[in-house]
């Protein structure tokens, strides 16, 4: 059951109808049962792993709280979650690599029993479990006496497969109080779903389907202009895919009176890398900042408070971005992507040392524009290593400067990047992702008609493509 499919919306509607007739405490049980039913439709094996992870983490949380300071149990908890994470991630990456190597040697073995599938959403709920254990250890939250609420925190179906990565500190209190769903929240939620469907079905799917398969295998067959156009299409496609997903699930969750965190804030308008990571996959960036960057950086600054110390400047961003790369995949490409992102942050920091600080928004417009071009170009360059294998990424970069023949790229690239930019510009200038709700009724009705027509027309192409981030 895909999040943008009619089945999912039908499922959510049935759950919602039952939800409104139940008292608050029973609503949580209903959401928990519904979340597991949803997960079982993907695979009963995923649901069993989630159940075991929930039990393990809940018991560990209780143990940490009981045996203050509970450091030993915190370390057991971190080790437990990281072991499960590494087992599935490494099996997901290394087993196919090993099997392909064996088959290249001419040996044929039965591979069915060796296939270990990465449970969808595992990377997301493991981070939520880790933050719960660490926050209980730091005495910022109680372990809680409601195992069902903790289970729902990990399993809540709108955010189960690809986030947003919520924190126990903010999510659990929402489960313990009466949820208010007023007309304002309903219209916000409905608008989020419509924007999400436009981003996913109309923009992202069209762009991603247009990208030629040959681009990943033989980038040298393409001209510089085509390479730039297709890789930009990939970035804009992935952005709209993930942003669309987040909008849809935030909208659905809003109907249950549970508001989920925002994950994107117009990252393609970032004027530097610090801004970029405050705007792209925000809930992951904030998790990494709070549980990786801050502890490392604070320990280093306590030892040596100098702002010019090279270790203070370089180590925290590089470790944090490498962790981000590994979280996405164990592949060398993603680790290279993480390392490059870390280096970009270090370079940015180093270049600004000793100069009076001017906020990006107060710089001259031309410098802001150049900042956006440089940031997005470098983000795309790093992204090439994530999208391609390393040899093909290097071939891509080489071809970028050698195949300079004048070949125009596919017009679909421009046709779909433009609406993405238009939606972003309107939201950015309005300083509100739901700025459309402030328009006069007639304009809103017109925009809704156009959006629904486009969603209907673009969804006629067959089975909807799964969301990219469900693969992580």
């Amino acid at each position, binding site marked *: 059951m895909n999040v943008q499919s009619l089945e999912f919306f039908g499922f959510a509607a049935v759950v919602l109808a039952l939800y409104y007739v139940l008292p608050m405490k029973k609503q949580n049980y209903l959401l928990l049962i519904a979340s597991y039913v949803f997960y079982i439709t993907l695979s009963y094996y995923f649901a069993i792993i989630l159940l075991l992870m929930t039990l393990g983490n809940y018991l560990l949380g209780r143990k940490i709280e009981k045996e203050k300071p509970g450091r030993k149990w915190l370390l057991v908890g971190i080790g437990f979650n990281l072991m499960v994470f590494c087992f599935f991630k490494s099996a997901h990456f290394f087993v196919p690599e090993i099997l392909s190597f064996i088959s290249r040697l001419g040996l044929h073995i039965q591979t069915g029993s060796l296939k270990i599938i990465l449970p969808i959403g595992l990377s997301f709920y493991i981070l939520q479990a880790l933050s719960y254990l660490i*926050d209980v250890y*730091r005495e*910022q939250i109680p372990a809680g006496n409601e195992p069902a609420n903790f289970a729902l925190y990990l399993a809540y179906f709108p955010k189960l497969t690809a986030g947003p990565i919520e*924190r126990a*500190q903010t999510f659990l209190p929402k489960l313990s109080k009466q949820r208010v769903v007023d007309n304002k929240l309903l219209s916000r939620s409905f608008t989020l779903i419509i924007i999400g469907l436009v981003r996913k079905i109309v923009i992202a799917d069209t762009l991603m389907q247009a990208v030629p398969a040959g681009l990943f295998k033989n980038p040298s067959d393409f001209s510089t202009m085509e390479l730039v156009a297709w890789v930009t299409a990939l970035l804009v496609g992935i952005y709209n895919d993930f942003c669309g997903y987040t909008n849809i699930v935030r909208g659905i969750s809003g109907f249950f009176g549970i508001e989920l965190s925002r994950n994107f804030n117009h990252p393609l308008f970032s004027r530097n890398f*610090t*801004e970029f990571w405050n705007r792209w996959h925000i809930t992951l960036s*904030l998790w990494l*900042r*709070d*549980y990786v*960057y*801050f*502890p490392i*950086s*604070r320990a280093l*600054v*306590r030892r040596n*408070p100098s*702002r010019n110390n090279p270790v203070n*400047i370089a180590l*925290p961003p590089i470790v944090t971005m490498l962790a981000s790369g590994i979280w996405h995949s164990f592949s060398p490409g993603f680790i290279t992507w993480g390392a490059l992102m870390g280096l970009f942050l270090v370079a940015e*920091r180093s270049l600004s040392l*000793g*100069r*009076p*600080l001017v*906020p*990006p*928004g*107060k710089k001259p417009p031309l410098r802001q524009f150049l900042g956006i071009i440089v940031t997005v170009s470098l983000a795309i360059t790093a992204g090439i290593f994530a999208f391609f294998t390393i040899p093909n990424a290097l071939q891509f970069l080489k071809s970028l400067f050698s195949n300079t023949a004048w070949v125009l790229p596919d017009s679909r690239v421009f046709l779909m990047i433009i609406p993405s930019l238009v939606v972003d510009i309107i939201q950015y200038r309005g300083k509100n992702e739901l700025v459309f709700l402030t328009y006069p009724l007639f304009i809103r009705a017109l925009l809704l008609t156009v959006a629904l027509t486009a969603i209907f027309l673009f969804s006629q192409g067959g089975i909807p493509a799964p969301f990219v981030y469900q693969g992580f």
Partner: protein
Amino acid sequence: MTENEIKEKLKTYICIEIIKNKDYPLTDDETMMSGGLVDSFSLVHIAVFIEKEIGVKIPDTDLSVEKMDTINLMTERIMQELK
């Protein structure tokens, strides 16, 4: 230490060490994180400064826009710990 003394200490440190402009007209309600003046790197330095000079440890998860965006918010968070 009074609330005003904390504000003055924070302003002086931020203007000299973070913004590198001692004449910067930093107001109590200027949004420093969302306005791009203070990033994660600078926030850690401010947190360690608060630890050393005021004797208050702000937890990592509270080093957020919601709790540290302005001088007023920073002071409010410090005062919570001092009470």
